[in-house]
C-alpha cells in the first residue's frame, strides 16, 4: 500500500531531480533520514523491554525493542517525508543554508507532533507532512519572504520585469495593485508551461503532468478513494466558476474567465494536495457519505482562503481544516455508511452556503476594481 504511494510519487520526484538536481536530493535526504530516525526511536520506546525485572545491557534492550520494527515503520515516514519535501522550494538564499535547518525542524515537528504523539501509524488526526510544512511556514516566514529565490514563484509587476519577492511559503500577495497579473504572467508563461512545470514554484507542485500520472496510478491500483478527489476538485471547480462570474458581471477590463479558472486549477498545490495529502486514508472519515462531505469541506476552505483570505496558502490550511472535521463526521451518534437524508442534506447545504457567502463577499465587500485585480490575480499555493 505505502509502496504504491511511493511509486506514484516517483514522477514528481524525478521531475524535481531533473529540474533542481542535487538540491532535491539533499532536501529529500534530510527529511527522510530525520523522519525515519524519529519513527525508529518511537518504535524503540513503544517496545522497550524485556520487562522481566532483570539487568540487561542497553544494546540488548535496543535489540529486543528493534524486533517490533517492520517495513511499514520505514515506508510510512518515507512517504510523509517525500510529500513534505515536495512542498518546499528547492533552495532559499538568506542565509544560504537556512532551508536545511527549516526542513529539519519541520520534519521532526511534523512527524513527532503530527503523528507519533497520537500513537503512531493509523492514529493521527492531522497529516504529518502538512503539519510540518505549516509549522515552518508560520515560524520562519520571515526568512522566506522578501528574498530573492532562484526559481521560486516571484511577483510580477508592471513592465514585465521579474522582481525578487514575496514567496509562496510566506503568502504575501504576489501582486502589486497596478498591474494585471494575468497578462504579464501569460506573456512570460503559457498554460502549457504551467501544466508541464516550466514555471517557478515549489518542488512538487509545478509539474501537473507528473502529479496526474501519480493520480491515475493510485486510482487504477485503488490505493486511494476516488470520492475524495472527485468531490474536492469538483466542488473547487464549481466554486471557482461561480466566483469568476462576479468580475465578469462587473465588467472588469482584461479579465479572461477561462484563463482565470485554468490558472486557479493549474497553479499552486491544488492537484498535489488532492492527490497525495488529502487522500491519506488515516485522516479521512471511514464512511462513503462522510468522504464526499470531507472533500467538499476542504474545497470550500481552499476557495475561501484563496479568494477571501489574506493568505495565499489555501490548500495546506484547508487540508488541516478538513482533517479536523473528519472525527466529527465519524462520530458514532450520527455516522452511517448508507445514504439517508441526514447524510445527503449537508452535501447540498454546504456548497450552497459557500456559494452564497462567496458571492456576497465578492459583490458587496470589494468595491474597487483594482482590488479585484489584486484578488483575482494572485493564484498561488
Amino acid at each position: 500500500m505505502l509502496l504504491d504511494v511511493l511509486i506514484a510519487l516517483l514522477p514528481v520526484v524525478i521531475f524535481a531531480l531533473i529540474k533542481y538536481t542535487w538540491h532535491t536530493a539533499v532536501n529529500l535526504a534530510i527529511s527522510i533520514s530525520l523522519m525515519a530516525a524519529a519513527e525508529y526511536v518511537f518504535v524503540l520506546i513503544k517496545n522497550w523491554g524485556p520487562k522481566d525485572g532483570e539487568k540487561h545491557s542497553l544494546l540488548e534492550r535496543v535489540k529486543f525493542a528493534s524486533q517490533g520494527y517492520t517495513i511499514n515503520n520505514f515506508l510510512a515516514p518515507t512517504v510523509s517525508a517525500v510529500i513534505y519535501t515536495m512542498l518546499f522550494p528547492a533552495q532559499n538564499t538568506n542565509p544560504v543554508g537556512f532551508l536545511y535547518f527549516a526542513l529539519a525542524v519541520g520534519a521532526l515537528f511534523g512527524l513527532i507532533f503530527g503523528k507519533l504523539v497520537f500513537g503512531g501509524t493509523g492514529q493521527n488526526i492531522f497529516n504529518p507532512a502538512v503539519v510540518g510544512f505549516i509549522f515552518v511556514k508560520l515560524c520562519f516566514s520571515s526568512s522566506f519572504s522578501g528574498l530573492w529565490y532562484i526559481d521560486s514563484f516571484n511577483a510580477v509587476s508592471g513592465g514585465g520585469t521579474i522582481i525578487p519577492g514575496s514567496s509562496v511559503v510566506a503568502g504575501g500577495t504576489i501582486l502589486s495593485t497596478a498591474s494585471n497579473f494575468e497578462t504579464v504572467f501569460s506573456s512570460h508563461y503559457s498554460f502549457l508551461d504551467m501544466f508541464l512545470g516550466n514555471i517557478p514554484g515549489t518542488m512538487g507542485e509545478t509539474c501537473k503532468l507528473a502529479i496526474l500520472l501519480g493520480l491515475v496510478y493510485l486510482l487504477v491500483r485503488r490505493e486511494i478513494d476516488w470520492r475524495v478527489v472527485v468531490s474536492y476538485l469538483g466542488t473547487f471547480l464549481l466554486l471557482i466558476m461561480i466566483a469568476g462570474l462576479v468580475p465578469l458581471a462587473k465588467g472588469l477590463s482584461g479579465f479572461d474567465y477561462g484563463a482565470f479558472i485554468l490558472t486557479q486549477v493549474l497553479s499552486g498545490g491544488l492537484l498535489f494536495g488532492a492527490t497525495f495529502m488529502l487522500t491519506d486514508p488515516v485522516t479521512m472519515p471511514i464512511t462513503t457519505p462522510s468522504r464526499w462531505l470531507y472533500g467538499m469541506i476542504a474545497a470550500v476552505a481552499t476557495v475561501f482562503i484563496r479568494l477571501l483570505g489574506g493568505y495565499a496558502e489555501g490548500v495546506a490550511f484547508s487540508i488541516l481544516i478538513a482533517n479536523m472535521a473528519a472525527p466529527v463526521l465519524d462520530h458514532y451518534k450520527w455516522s452511517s455508511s448508507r445514504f439517508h437524508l441526514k447524510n445527503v442534506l449537508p452535501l447540498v447545504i454546504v456548497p450552497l452556503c459557500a456559494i452564497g457567502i462567496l458571492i456576497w463577499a465578492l459583490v458587496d465587500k470589494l468595491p474597487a476594481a483594482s482590488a479585484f485585480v489584486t484578488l483575482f490575480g494572485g493564484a498561488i499555493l
Partner: protein
Amino acid sequence: MIAAAKHIEDTKKLLGMLPTIHLAVPEYLFIATNNARCNGSETFIKEGDHVNCCQLIGIRHAPFFDQPIHATCSGTFLGYEEHYHRSGKLVKFMKFHNDFKDTMDPSVHERSDEEIAKLTKDDIAKILKDCASVGLGGSSFPTYIKMETKNPIKHLLINGIECEPYITSDHRLMLEDSEEVIKGIKILQQAFGCSDAKLCVKGKYKDLRELYDVLLRREKDSGITLCPVGNFFPQGWEIAMIRAATGIDVPSGHLPSEFGVINFNVSTVVGIYQAVKFNMPVFERNISVTGDGVLMPSNFRVRVGTPIKSLIERSGGYKDPDKPKVFILGGPMMGASLPSDDCIITKTVTSVLVFNAEKHVVEPCIRCGSCVLSCPAHLQPVAIMNAMKVTPVEKERVKALDPLKCIECGLCTYSCTSKIPVLDFVRRAKVIAKLP
C-alpha cells in the same frame, strides 16, 4: 487496496466437475448427544442394545424445541466417547459398531403419492419434526418450526447458491439428485400452497442452468423456475438471495415469512423429500473434502457419524504432513476452525477444508475503510473495533454501532489491508451489545 471485497476467488471449478464418490460406511459410527443448539439430551437405549438404521434412540433438548436422535447404521450400541463436534465443543458421542447389514427400522415406510397429496402443512411439519429435519446449509435450525409459520407465503426460494469458495456439496447434489430436488420442491409447494417456486443458483454455473432448463421443461405447470443470481459472496445469505430473486428487501431483525417469502437450502429440500416419502431422517449427505492440505480433493457421499479421519484417508491423506494444518468445517469465510482432526461428521457439516497454516503479520489499522465498503449488512467494522479497544468498555457507543446486525460473513477480515482479524472484535462487540 481500498476496495469493497465482493468477488472472492472461487477455486472450485474443477472440484465441481468431480462426481460424488459414495463412501463405504466405516466400522464405527458416532452420533452426537448434544450439538450447537441443544445442551441436554436423553438416550432411550443402553449399552449392548441392537439398533436398526434410522431407529429413534434419543432426544436432544434445546431452549425452544426438542429434537429426536436417530441411528444411522444398524449394529450394537457400545457406549459413549468424547470427540470434537462441529461447534468446536468436546461432546459425548454415542458409539455404534456397524454390522454392515443396514437393517431399516420398521418406522421407515414408503408413502404412496396419493397419501402424500393428502398431507397438509401441519402434517408435513409433524413428519419433519419426527424425522429431525434441520437446515442442512449450516444453520441447523429445525425445519418444522419454519414450516409452522402462519404468514401467507407467495414466494418459495430454494438456496442452491453455495457462495462460499471451495465447497461443491450442493452443486453435486443438484446435478446428481435432481429428481429428488424437484420432488422435494413440489412437496413444499403443496405445503405452503405456493405456486411460485424459484431455484436460485449462481449465474455462472452453466451445467446447472442447462440441466434444469431441460428438466423444468417437463414441469411447465409446476411453477418451478430456475433463477440465476449474482456470483459474489455472500449471495447465499438469505437477505441477499431474496433481494436478488424477488426484489423484496427484508430489514434486519425481521423474518422473511413476514414478507411472504420462505427459503430452504437445497440439501434440506432433498431431506424433506426423503422424510415425507419414506419417513426417513437424513442419515447421509454430500461432503466436499478439499484445500491445499489434502492430496486428492474429492466430493463424497458420507454416512452421518463417520469420523473425519476416514474421510481424509480416502482423499489421499495429508499433503506435507509435517506442516501444521488448519481444519475448517464449513466454508473458509464462515466455517468453524477446529483444534484437531478428531471430529465426527454430523448432519450439518457441508465440507472439510484442510489448509497449510500460514502466519500473517498484523499491521496497525490505517482506517482505509475497506471493511466499511465490504460489509453486506452496512455496518462500520473499524468503528466497532475502535470502540471495543477502549477500556473500560463504552456500552452506549458499542450499541449505537449495531453489531447485532452482523452476519459474521468474514468479509471485513478478508478485505482488511492490514490483515487485522476485525470479525473477532465484532463478535466480542455482540456480547457487549446484548448486555442490558
